[in-house]
C-alpha cells in the first residue's frame, strides 16, 4: 500500500506540475525515480515536521499540491498545531501521507504506534481523513486527492495487505463502499479492518449469521447516507478499528447515529484497541490479536453481542 501510494505521487507529478513530494528523512531511495525525473519537486527537508508543515502551507498558498510524507505519529503528534493552524485554518490542499497507521510499527513501540491519529485529525475543521484498505484502493484514492479542496490525512497500512477492494466499486472521497449487503449485523470498517471483517463475516455465516460490511475508507467526512441506509434491518452495528476507543471510527458512527436518529438507536458494538499505550511489541497482527481484533475474536464478539441484543434491543428500522 505504501509503495503504491508513493508511486502514485510520482505518477500524479508526471501529470500535474503542481504536485510536490516532501519527505522529512525517509528511507534511502524513497521515490528515487521521481527524484531523478523531477528533482525540483522531490524535496527532502529534514527531521523538522513542524517546519515542513508550515513550509507546505506556504507552497500550497502559491498553488502547489504538496504530498508530505513521514511516519504517522510524527505527522500528527509532533506538528499538531501546524496542521491545525497552517493547513486546516487556511484550508490548504496539502496531503499528509502517514506511514504506518495504527500498529504497523508494533515492534518499535509506543512512540511509533499511531493509535489516536484518526481522532485528533478528525477533530480538526476542514480536515479529511482517509484510511485505505489495500494497495489497489490506495491507488484509486490517490487519484482523487489531486483536486480535493482542503487538507487530507491519509493513513496508510503496512503494505502487502491482502487485496480485497474491487475496481468496480471505484473510489470517491467521502463515499463509503458496501462490501456485503446488510444482514443481522452490519460491520463498519476502516483501513485494514476490512480484511478482518470479511473473514469474520465468513466465520459468522458458518454460524448462520448474515453480516453486512460497510467500508468507511473516509472517516471524515463520514458517509452518513450510506450508513443510515446500511443499518436498515440490522440488529447490531459493529465498528472495527485499529485505534483507541475515543474519537475514531466508532465514535464517528455513534455520533452520526445519535445526531440522525436521536432515539431508537441500534445496538452498537465498538471494537477497538484499549485506551492505553501498547507495551507489547511483536507484530501488528499479534497486537491486534491480543486486543480482540483478530477475525476470530471479532466474530465471537459479534456473536455474543447479537445474543445479548436479542434479549434486550428491538430490531431496527425494518424495511
Amino acid at each position, binding site marked *: 500500500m505504501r509503495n503504491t501510494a508513493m508511486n502514485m505521487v510520482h505518477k500524479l507529478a508526471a501529470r500535474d506540475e503542481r504536485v510536490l513530494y516532501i519527505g522529512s528523512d525517509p528511507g534511502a531511495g524513497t521515490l528515487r525515480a521521481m527524484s531523478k525525473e523531477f528533482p*525540483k*519537486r522531490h524535496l527532502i*527537508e*529534514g527531521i*523538522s515536521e*513542524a*517546519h*515542513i*508543515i*508550515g*513550509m*507546505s*502551507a*506556504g*507552497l*500550497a*498558498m*502559491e*498553488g*502547489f499540491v504538496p504530498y508530505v510524507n513521514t511516519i504517522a505519529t510524527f505527522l500528527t503528534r509532533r506538528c499538531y*498545531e*501546524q496542521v491545525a*493552524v*497552517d493547513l486546516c*485554518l*487556511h484550508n490548504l490542499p496539502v496531503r499528509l501521507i502517514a506511514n504506518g497507521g495504527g500498529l504497523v510499527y508494533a515492534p518499535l513501540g509506543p512512540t511509533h504506534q499511531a493509535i489516536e491519529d484518526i481522532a485528533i485529525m478528525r477533530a480538526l475543521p476542514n480536515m479529511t481523513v482517509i484510511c485505505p484498505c489495500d494497495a489497489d484502493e490506495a491507488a484509486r484514492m490517490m487519484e482523487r486527492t489531486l483536486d480535493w479542496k482542503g487538507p487530507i490525512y491519509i493513513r496508510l497500512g503496512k503494505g502487502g495487505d491482502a487485496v480485497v477492494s474491487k475496481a468496480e466499486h471505484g473510489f470517491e472521497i467521502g463515499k463509503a463502499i458496501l462490501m456485503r449487503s446488510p444482514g443481522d449485523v452490519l460491520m463498519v470498517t476502516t483501513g485494514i479492518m476490512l480484511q478482518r471483517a470479511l473473514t469474520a463475516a465468513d466465520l459468522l455465516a458458518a454460524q448462520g449469521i448474515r453480516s453486512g460490511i460497510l467500508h468507511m475508507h473516509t472517516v471524515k467526512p463520514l458517509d452518513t447516507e450510506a450508513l443510515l441506509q446500511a443499518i436498515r434491518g440490522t440488529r447490531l452495528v459493529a465498528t472495527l478499528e485499529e485505534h483507541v476507543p475515543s474519537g475514531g471510527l466508532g465514535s464517528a458512527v455513534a455520533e452520526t447515529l445519535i445526531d440522525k436518529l436521536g432515539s431508537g438507536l441500534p445496538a452498537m458494538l465498538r471494537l477497538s484497541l484499549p485506551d492505553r499505550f501498547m507495551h507489547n511489541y511483536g507484530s501488528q497482527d499479534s497486537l491486534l490479536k491480543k486486543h480482540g481484533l483478530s477475525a476470530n475474536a471479532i466474530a465471537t464478539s459479534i456473536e455474543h453481542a447479537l445474543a445479548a441484543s436479542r434479549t434486550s434491543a428491538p430490531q431496527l428500522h425494518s424495511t
Partner: protein
Amino acid sequence: MIQISPHAESALTCTLDERSLYLRRLVLGSVRSAGRGHVGPALSLIEMVRVLYDDVLRIDPKNPRDPNRDRAILSKGHGCLALYALLADRGFFPLSELDGFCGPDSILGGHPEYGMVPGVEASTGALGHGLSIGVGLALAARMRERSYRTFVLLGDGEINEGSVWEAAMGAAKHGLDNLVALIDYNKLQSYGPTDYVLPLEPLADKWRSFGFAVQEVNGHDVSALRTVLKQVPAVAGKPTAVICHTVKGKGLPAAESNADWHHKNKLTDSELDAIRVAVGDF
C-alpha cells in the same frame, strides 16, 4: 560579558517623527476603543512595518492578491495593531475599521486572519509558524520563477520556538535570498527580559551560523531601516536576517521596556492623558 549593541542604545534614545507618532495614535485609538490590546508589542514594531509598507514592499492595496506582490507575514501575530494601522493607512481597508478592533463583527481580531483582513497573508497568533510559511512562499517564487520577495516579522521571544530554527536551516539549505527575516529585538517577551526567560545572545552569530546574511539596525530609525531593507538580499544566495534593535512600548514612556504593557486592558484616564502628551491628541 555581552556588549550592548550601539543600535540598541540608539533605539532607546532616538526620537520619532510625525508619521511615527500618527501611526501610534492609530494603534492606541484601537486599544482605547476595544479596551484591550497588545500595546508594547505593536509599538516596538511600528517603524519596521512602516518602512516595509511605505518604502519596501511592492504591493498595490487595490490589488491585494496580485501574484507578483511581495509577501509580508507578521509571524508575531500579537503585534497586529501595528500592521492594522499600516494596512488601513495604506488603503487596504477603511481607517474606521480600526475602531472596531476585537469587536464581535470586526474583521480585525486580536491576531490577524488570512481571508478576513485584506493584505494579511497568513493567519498568525501561535508563535513560531511564520518563517516556515515564508520558506514555502519563497521556495514557490523560486520554482515558479516569480520575482516577489517574502518578508517575515518575528518577535525575539518567538524565536525561542525550535520550529523557527528548523525553518532557518531550511531557508539556508535552499539559499533563499528572496526571503528576509526581520527580528523585533526588543529584549522583552511576555514574562520579562529575554535574557532571563531564555537568553538569545549571541543572536547575530546564531543567525549567521544558520546560514543567513545578518544586518543589525536601530529598528526605530526609519532611514536606517530603509537603507538596510532596500538592500536585500544582503548577500546573493543567502536568506537575510535583519536584527532590529527596538524598545518594547517605544514612544510611550510608561510602556517602554515595561513588561506590564505587553497586553493592556482598559486605559485609565491618567494613562490616556500620558498618551496624549507622548504621541499627541487622539
